[in-house]
Structure formats: structure tokens, C-alpha cells
């Protein structure tokens, strides 16, 4: 009885600490719709759906990820480090290609930032992202036209990323991703076949113990590169702080 109460206290204190730890810096965590997180609650359902669907298709075809996040405020941080941290926490873009793009709006501060992953810096140098913001977004955001501003900008940046990655909206995901996925699955099959053969040989010799447990699972899993097929999550991409910021 005493023991139970003790463990109860221990558990609850653990939860309280956890709660405190997460409350300290409440950066909006990725939702199950990863590509769009309207934490400031300023976008319409249609805009959100449009962004979600298009980013999802782009991701499935090219592994490039475009994420739109709106936050009520930056919690005292500066826009640039907030954006870089969010970018890295989300892991936007593919881990190897780093082809992620983040569009971040801070409502209270009235600031907008485009943060570009390493892999897209060639297609979207800082100066260009600034010009694109000036051209497509800032005039609209100045008039609090959130939906139009974000939508306009999203489309413009989407077009640039699509051009860079060779994505065509008519394309089905298999057209672009086919080759890589195929080689991945062939590799996985080869690994399985190898282990089966090894297993057969080993058991024929009368000793079944040469295969370490769990190894098979580990190796077939690693070939998928952490990019889950159900996939609304970051690919582990990073950014070095490239992009541009604007006030509106």
C-alpha cells in the first residue's frame, strides 16, 4: 500500500516535470498533417487542404517537402533562430538531399520568413526568396489577407521547387520515385534471401545458432531510410539558416 502511494507520487511528479519541460518552449509540434500547421488559426480550411494535398504529392514523388507554419507569436525569440530551430525539429526535407522549404508566419510580430534547406539553396538563393516575398506575399499580408497571401506565395515557391526537382503535377508519385524505391525493395529482398539461405545452410549443418536475433529486422528496416510510407513526417532534412525575412 505504502509502496503504491510512493510510485503514484513518483509518476505524477514525472508527469509534472514533463509538462513543465514542454511548456517552457511551446513551439508547435508537427501535426498529423505535417505540411500545414496553422497554430495562429488564420487560414481557411480550403487553403490548408490545398497546401496539405500538394505538399503531400510533391513529397511522395520527389521527397522534397514544403511546410507552412503560422504561429501566434515567437515567444521572445528572434525570427531567424526560431525558424531554423523549427526547421530542424520538424526535419523538413529528405535527410540526404535536404530539400526542405519552410514558410513561417508570426502573427503578433507581423513577420514572415522563408527558410531554405541546404539542398534548395541553389534554386532559391536568399535574394530570390526575398524578391518573391515582396512580389507575391507581402502586399497581401499587409492588408491582413492571410489566405490570399499565403496561397499566392505557396504557389510561387511550389513552382520553384517543382522546377528544381523535376516534379510535374500530372505525374503520379511512382513516375519519379519509382527507380529509387525499386532498388530499395530489391535490396531488401536480397537481404531476406541471403538470410534465408544462410539459415538453411546453418540448420542443415545441425547448428541453428549463427544468425543473431533481430538482425534481419534491423537491416531491412534501415534500407527504407527513415522515410515511412504512410509518411506525414519530416525526412530529417536540415537547414543552415538560408532564406529571407520580411516584416509586413
Amino acid at each position, binding site marked *: 500500500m505504502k509502496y503504491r502511494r510512493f510510485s503514484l507520487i513518483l509518476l505524477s511528479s514525472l508527469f509534472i516535470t514533463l509538462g513543465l519541460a514542454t511548456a517552457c518552449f511551446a513551439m508547435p509540434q508537427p501535426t498529423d498533417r505535417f505540411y500545414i500547421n496553422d497554430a495562429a488559426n488564420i487560414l481557411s480550411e480550403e487553403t490548408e487542404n490545398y497546401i496539405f494535398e500538394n505538399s503531400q504529392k510533391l513529397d511522395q514523388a520527389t521527397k522534397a517537402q514544403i511546410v507552412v507554419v503560422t504561429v501566434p507569436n515567437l515567444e521572445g525569440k528572434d525570427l*531567424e*533562430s526560431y525558424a*531554423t530551430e523549427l526547421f530542424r525539429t520538424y526535419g523538413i526535407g529528405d535527410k540526404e538531399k535536404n530539400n526542405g522549404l519552410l514558410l513561417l508566419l508570426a502573427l503578433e510580430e507581423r513577420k514572415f520568413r522563408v527558410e531554405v534547406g541546404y539542398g534548395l539553396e541553389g534554386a532559391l*538563393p*536568399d*535574394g*530570390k*526568396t*526575398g*524578391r518573391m516575398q*515582396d512580389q507575391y506575399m507581402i502586399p497581401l499580408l499587409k492588408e491582413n489577407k492571410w489566405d490570399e497571401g499565403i496561397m499566392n506565395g505557396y504557389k510561387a515557391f511550389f513552382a520553384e521547387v517543382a522546377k528544381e526537382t523535376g516534379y510535374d503535377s500530372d505525374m503520379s508519385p511512382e513516375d519519379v520515385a519509382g527507380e529509387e524505391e525499386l532498388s530499395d525493395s530489391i535490396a531488401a529482398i536480397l537481404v531476406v534471401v541471403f538470410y534465408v539461405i544462410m539459415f538453411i545452410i546453418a540448420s542443415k549443418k545441425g547448428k541453428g545458432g549463427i544468425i543473431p536475433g533481430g538482425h534481419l529486422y534491423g537491416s531491412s528496416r534501415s534500407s527504407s531510410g527513415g522515410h515511412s510510407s504512410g509518411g506525414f513526417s519530416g525526412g530529417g532534412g536540415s*537547414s*543552415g*539558416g*538560408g*532564406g*529571407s*525575412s520580411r516584416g509586413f
Partner: protein
Amino acid sequence: MKKKSTIFIIIGAVILLLAGFLISRYNGMVTLGEKVDAKFSDIDTQLQRRTDLIPNLVNSVKGYMSHEQDAIEKVTSARTQLMNASSVAEKGEADSALTGALNNLLAIAENYPDLKANENFTTLMDELAGTENRIATARKDYNDVVKEFNTSIKQFPNSIFAGMFGFGEKEYFRAQEGANEVPTVQFNTTE
């Protein structure tokens, strides 16, 4: 006889274990040290990019701000200082000085609407701001690895043989306090 060989085997095994332990520790430190160097070269790349951008900026600004020779001069000399810096500390200091000089110049540029409307200038400003931000990010990444490295060589048991292997503490890349603050503008055209 048999007992003797058992002892030898045990001693041999202990030596092998110890050697393996030392090797893995050594390799761990080498790997971390390499990571520190790699992160520093990231900073260096961005510092280089920054020094490359300055002449363009000065050229585009000159025509508009002919009265602000002083501010422009400060930027150019800070750039030279950065180019001549070699150690981590020197580079950190020079970079801070350049940031200060640039911020000063840009604050003055606020008073030249023609310049601000110039698309070339805007693009340059974005590139510069982006580079500055990349330097800040690279600096943070670098300092994180340096901290990891310094902690690892100071911790037991690495602390015993870190010196023996020739591993010393790595230097942090420090930004001068207040270098990122926008200075108050002394706007005088007579000088």
C-alpha cells in the same frame, strides 16, 4: 604448467581489452575533433561569402550615399580585418566588428528611399542577411560540438590520456556582446 598458461591467457586478454578500450577512446576523440574542424570550416565558408559580398554592397551604395564615406570606410576596413584574421578568436572578433559596421551602414541607408527601392540593393541585403544568419547558425553548431569535445576530453577516463594523445581544448567562436544590436544612427551629412 597448465596453470601458467592460463595466467598468460588472462594477462593477454586484459592487455587486449585495455588496448581495445584505449583505441576506441582515441578514435572517439579523433572523430569528435574532426567534427569540430568540419563545423569550423562551415563558418569559414560563410565568412568568406560575406567578405565576397561586401564589395558589391559598397559599389551599389556609393552612388547613393556619397556623403557617408565614414560609414562605408568602416565596413571596408572591418572586411579587411576579417580577411586578415587567422585564429578562431580573431575571426570571431573581426566578424563582430563587421556586423557592427554593416548594421550602422544599413541604419543610415534607411534614410535613402531611392536606395531602398533599388532591387539590386534589396537582393544584396537579403544575401547579406542570409549569410549573417548562416554564420549565426554555423557558429551555434560549431560551439555545440566544441562543448561536446571539451567535455569529453575533460571527463574521466578520457582526462587521463587526452593530454598523452595530444588533445587540447578547442576554442569557442564567440560573438562580441551586442554585435547584433542595431546601433543608434548618427545622421550627419556634413562630415
